[in-house]
């Protein structure tokens, strides 16, 4: 049972797309859930807390971030294996999330978002045997 699914099709292999002059990358994530919460962990190297945005709207969780220019003054780029730009990915969440208690931290290029599930309000109705 997958309560959380990626909204993009799985067949997308090339994980970059150009948006204006900036490249957008799809970060790799771990999503772990238990009874109380869903935890999302994403690798977003180069992005700091200030540049990260998280939104939850109508069951869609979106994470985005950007990497400030990595140009090094007085040096010329001599060898390139990776590109920088921004990060973007969204997920749909079917669980009822307590939006007020969402917590997010960014540390060493890793974003961790904790989405606490709302406690069930449905009461169990006992059926009495006649």
């Amino acid at each position, binding site marked *: 049972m997958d309560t959380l699914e990626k909204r993009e099709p799985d067949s997308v292999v090339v994980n970059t797309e150009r948006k204006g002059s900036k490249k957008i990358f799809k970060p790799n*994530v771990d999503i772990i859930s238990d009874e109380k919460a869903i935890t999302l962990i994403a690798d977003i190297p180069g992005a700091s807390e200030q540049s990260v945005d998280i939104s939850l709207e109508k069951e869609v969780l979106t994470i985005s971030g950007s990497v400030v220019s990595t140009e090094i003054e007085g040096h010329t780029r001599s060898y390139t294996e990776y590109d920088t730009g921004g990060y973007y990915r969204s997920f749909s969440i079917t669980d009822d999330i307590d939006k007020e208690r969402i917590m997010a931290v960014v540390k060493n*290029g890793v974003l961790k978002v904790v989405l606490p599930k709302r406690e069930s309000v449905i009461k169990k109705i006992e059926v009495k045997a006649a």
Partner: protein
Amino acid sequence: MFLYDFEPYTYRSPIWSELDNFQNEMNTLFSTSKGPRVQRNYPCVNAWTNEEEIKLTAELPGFNTENIQISVKGDILTLAGSRETEKIGEGEEFHRNERVGGNFSRTFNLPFRVDSAKVVADYRDGVLTVTLPRSEEDKPKKIEIKAA
């Protein structure tokens, strides 16, 4: 493990890095599309140079600095490290598990010999920057011409 040749002092037109990226993307496209993608050259690095030094940056999110080893000898640089994968306890389940962990080791051939005593490394926002100053003996000597 991997020895990469930096092309010393040759100007590389930006078109080449674009082509490199294109090649990488094509390689990715034709490699296993199922299961987690494993990068052969981990971590990816960029290098910035001038006459005095080379700055190497590597994307290493979620590492502890004590788990990153940097060693330099002459013109050979080795980056090694390890990262733990997320583990789950009882009652928890993975919906996605894409982030990879484990050990890596990569060796680079630098364009010049480096003064290993002056090498500085900085780790910020998951990006490692290693500054490698060129050794004095390696720098070109200016020869003055004396007028008679």
